[in-house]
């Protein structure tokens, strides 16, 4: 017995020792909760909203948005001023000479050129590489580099060596300088020429992937694979003490899934911009725990509350029993995708290939009922794809209403008529409408929405359906292989222009999961792309969206998203000031301030 006791006392002593050495830091000026740890702090690789949120605190692009304005216009950041050529193709930026990296190095125009080249290299894996292809010569550069890498990989082993790989890299750098229309006449001037006039290019200059990285730091963490000649970025440069950034804050400490702490960047050019001295991010995945943590005072803000009892919380809010649940319109739409290809994955004929069938299915849906009775949140029922009112000067189309008679008429016009009076419509060959498989992922309210949609379709059109639940990875693969009939979907806009939504319905777009290929839609989008007059361009895009939402229907929009925050009102003690209400919901952490 004594021996056992000895072993246990040892373990207990070790535990107590560990417990007392592992202490959390004191409370920061502003603490907020994110539901998951960041995917990456690398601006060129990121594509998640929370990643951008933290990146805006750490990095500074050429421009910044005025997030407290209604139209979210751009204001100077690293670029103090800029000019646009009369053909609206060439942008020249004049950089602030006092801008510095967090190690004291000056921020030079060459840093931007380096960063944009980095984004264009295929091996970097930039999710937003397409936005960089708006620069003249950029797309060709990426293709050239990909071809060179392929040719290198096929060389005999004797012709591969670190020196040969390095030589290809030098050649690539030269090729970029010679062929891509990004110029750095001096340290504080940067110019870029575009392939066509892009009305939202300034908006992109404020967008995360265009923010600069510190070239010497990146180089320190990059090596060249002699077997493939590809640049290999090693991990670690995004973490302290290595991360060098040019925004208002630096990362003081980052402990995976526990906490990230930011402190002021001592070299930041405009110290008065940032309100709080220290910021802390807590990562709490379980939303019930996150709610309890906020209520117990552990944080000042929860950036993304996603609970299925959100309706009850909002009701408590309306009844005046709580003031910390805040709903904002977001820049995204929840929809259902129709598989628009002629045949289903198993070779059967696809009834949804016919736009009349898609229209019938859309007309049969009472979106207001879904939003109010299933979702029970602050979402707005959607008849258009782009959230109305989110883009200045752009007017959303009316879309299709909830109209049972018209839904039945459309289905009949498509040849689906209940010929044998069994309640299910048949086509002219007497084949009944197949059971509609509704593809969802297991999280959230997708399954509930699917069941309600199915009931609406059955009662209006007589068509049966069943819900197919697949894990997210499988669901994504099914979409890519068009192995579905209808599937839940969502899209959030990236920049302040209708094309950020409308591009995904173009035939060749990589995010077109529906296999939607419509000559008229593609034509309208191309015409809009070539239209020099911004106002006329918006009109053409409005027509494209109207065509997609009233005639062609690649997707059935259900609601425009709302985003839920936990934050006390700005006028109370502990309340959060300077939250942006613009649907893009860009919350610069450096602007946020807790009322004390």
């Amino acid at each position: 017995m004594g021996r056992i006791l000895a072993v246990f006392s040892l373990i207990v002593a070790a535990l107590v020792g560990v417990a007392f050495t592992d202490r959390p830091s004191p409370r920061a000026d502003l603490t907020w909760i994110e539901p998951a740890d960041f995917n990456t702090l690398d601006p060129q690789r990121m594509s998640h909203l929370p990643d951008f949120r933290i990146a805006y605190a750490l990095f500074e692009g050429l421009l910044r948005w005025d997030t407290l304005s209604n139209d979210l216009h751009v204001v100077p950041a690293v670029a103090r001023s800029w000019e646009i050529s009369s053909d609206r193709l060439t942008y020249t930026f004049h950089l602030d000479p006092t801008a510095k990296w967090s190690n004291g190095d000056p921020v030079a125009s060459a840093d931007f050129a380096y960063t944009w080249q980095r984004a264009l290299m295929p091996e970097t894996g930039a999710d937003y590489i397409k936005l960089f292809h708006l620069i003249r010569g950029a797309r060709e550069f990426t293709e050239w580099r990909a071809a060179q890498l392929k040719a290198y990989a096929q060389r005999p082993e004797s012709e591969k060596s670190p020196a040969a790989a390095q030589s290809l890299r030098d050649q690539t750098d030269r090729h970029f300088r010679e062929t891509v229309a990004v110029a750095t006449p001096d340290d504080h001037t940067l110019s870029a020429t575009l392939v066509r006039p892009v009305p939202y290019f300034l908006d992109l200059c404020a967008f995360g992937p265009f923010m600069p990285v510190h070239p010497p730091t990146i180089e320190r963490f990059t090596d060249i694979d002699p077997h493939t000649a590809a640049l290999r970025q090693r991990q670690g440069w995004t973490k302290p003490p290595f991360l060098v950034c040019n925004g208002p804050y630096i990362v003081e400490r980052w402990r995976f899934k526990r906490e990230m702490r930011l402190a002021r960047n001592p070299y930041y050019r405009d110290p008065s911009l940032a309100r709080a001295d220290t910021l802390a991010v807590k990562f709490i995945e379980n939303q019930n725990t996150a709610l309890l943590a906020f209520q117990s005072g552990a944080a000042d803000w929860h950036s993304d509350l996603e609970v299925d009892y959100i309706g009850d919380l909002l009701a408590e809010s309306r009844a005046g029993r709580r003031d910390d649940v805040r709903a904002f319109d977001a820049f995204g739409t929840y929809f259902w995708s129709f598989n628009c290809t002629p045949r289903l994955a198993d070779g059967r004929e696809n009834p949804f290939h016919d736009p009349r069938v898609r229209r019938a299915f859309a007309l049969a849906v009472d979106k207001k009922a879904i939003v109010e009775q299933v979702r029970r949140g602050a979402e707005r029922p959607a008849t258009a794809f782009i959230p109305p009112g989110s883009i200045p000067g752009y007017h959303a189309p009316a879309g299709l209403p909830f109209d049972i008679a018209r839904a039945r008429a459309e289905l009949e016009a498509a040849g689906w008529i209940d010929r044998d009076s069994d309640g299910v419509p048949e086509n002219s060959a007497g084949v009944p409408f197949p059971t509609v498989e509704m593809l969802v992922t297991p999280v959230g309210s997708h399954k509930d929405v699917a069941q309600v949609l199915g009931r609406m379709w059955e009662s209006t059109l007589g068509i049966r359906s069943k819900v197919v639940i697949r894990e997210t990875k499988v669901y994504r693969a099914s979409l890519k292989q068009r192995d579905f009939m209808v599937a839940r979907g969502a899209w959030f806009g990236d920049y302040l222009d209708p094309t950020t939504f409308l591009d995904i319905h173009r035939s060749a777009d990589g995010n077109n999961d529906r296999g939607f290929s419509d000559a008229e839609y593609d034509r309208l989008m191309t015409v809009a792309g070539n239209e020099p007059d911004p106002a006329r361009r918006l009109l053409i895009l409005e027509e494209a969206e109207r065509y997609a939402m009233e005639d062609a229907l690649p997707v059935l929009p259900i609601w425009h998203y709302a985003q839920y925050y936990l934050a006390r009102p700005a006028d109370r003690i502990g309340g959060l000031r300077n939250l942006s209400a613009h649907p893009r919901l860009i919350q610069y952490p450096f602007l946020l301030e807790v009322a004390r």
Partner: protein
Amino acid sequence: MIPLILRRLIQLPLIVLAVYTVTFVLAWALPGEAVLNDEGRQPPAEVLSALRARYHLDDPSRFYVEYLYRASGLMWTVESVKGASGSPPDHVFDLGPSFRYEDWSVNELIASSLPVSIVLGLSAIIIALALGLGAGIIGALRPNSLWDFATLSVALVGISLPGFVIGTALLLMFPVWLGIGSVGSWGRPADILLPAITLSLPFAAYIARLTRMGMLDVLNADYIRTARAKGLAPPAVILKHALKNAFLPVLSYLGPACAMAMTGSFVVERVFNVPGIGQHFVAAVKNKDLFVIMGVTLIYSTMLTLFNLATDVLYRWVDPRIS
């Protein structure tokens, strides 16, 4: 004892290799694109193929061999011996990068989460031992009494109630209503207490039943009657004489219980936001985070094998009758 340890240590790499191979086949068969973020944007084909080539995702056999070469420490050994081509890799056992958390390597993820799970798991087992032995002894001393009934019922509740119910109830009770402790933080000793109690309850319940049965058997034995007859104080009889034998089944249960407590705490980790290793078992598979799946499995199988070895050694040491 020494031959046993040696034999087990020789078996270890073979067991781990078998686990690695099976995991590799299963992970490779998972549907979905590993290098893509689910909610991210779809990059063009040349970007995708460049990324796949970088991680050998286009060539399963190369991936299998290369990963084994890095993870087993062979690469580190070879590079260190050669020494010529620059510095050796950062880690002896290089488990690769995470696809989902791109700024972290699997080594870092495990280094930050494994100690947390060990501390939480061992704390839970110690609490379970204290609760379980106490309840078991009380129940055995007065079998079929109200006390016995009460402890058995509590044990039943401990086994039946899922962790997220007990965990949420404890969170509501202590930090939210009473203001004791905090929600969703990790680091202070008080932060460990609530999750450890939640995690300990099913183990405590099992230990209580094992102890009660063991004690009931032993308490009627002749040598206990002798001890009482020679006038020993009742506590000494129970703790020194009876418990010594009644404890053996508990001890053999402790080995697997420790392993389970350290790795099977996924639910408790979620409720209390504990940054332990349990999350990786579930999340990595959902994300098809290949290197995390492989790395965590390798570490876990190595740990489990060593743990069983430790239990066997401890058992022989405590009970010399077993050889």
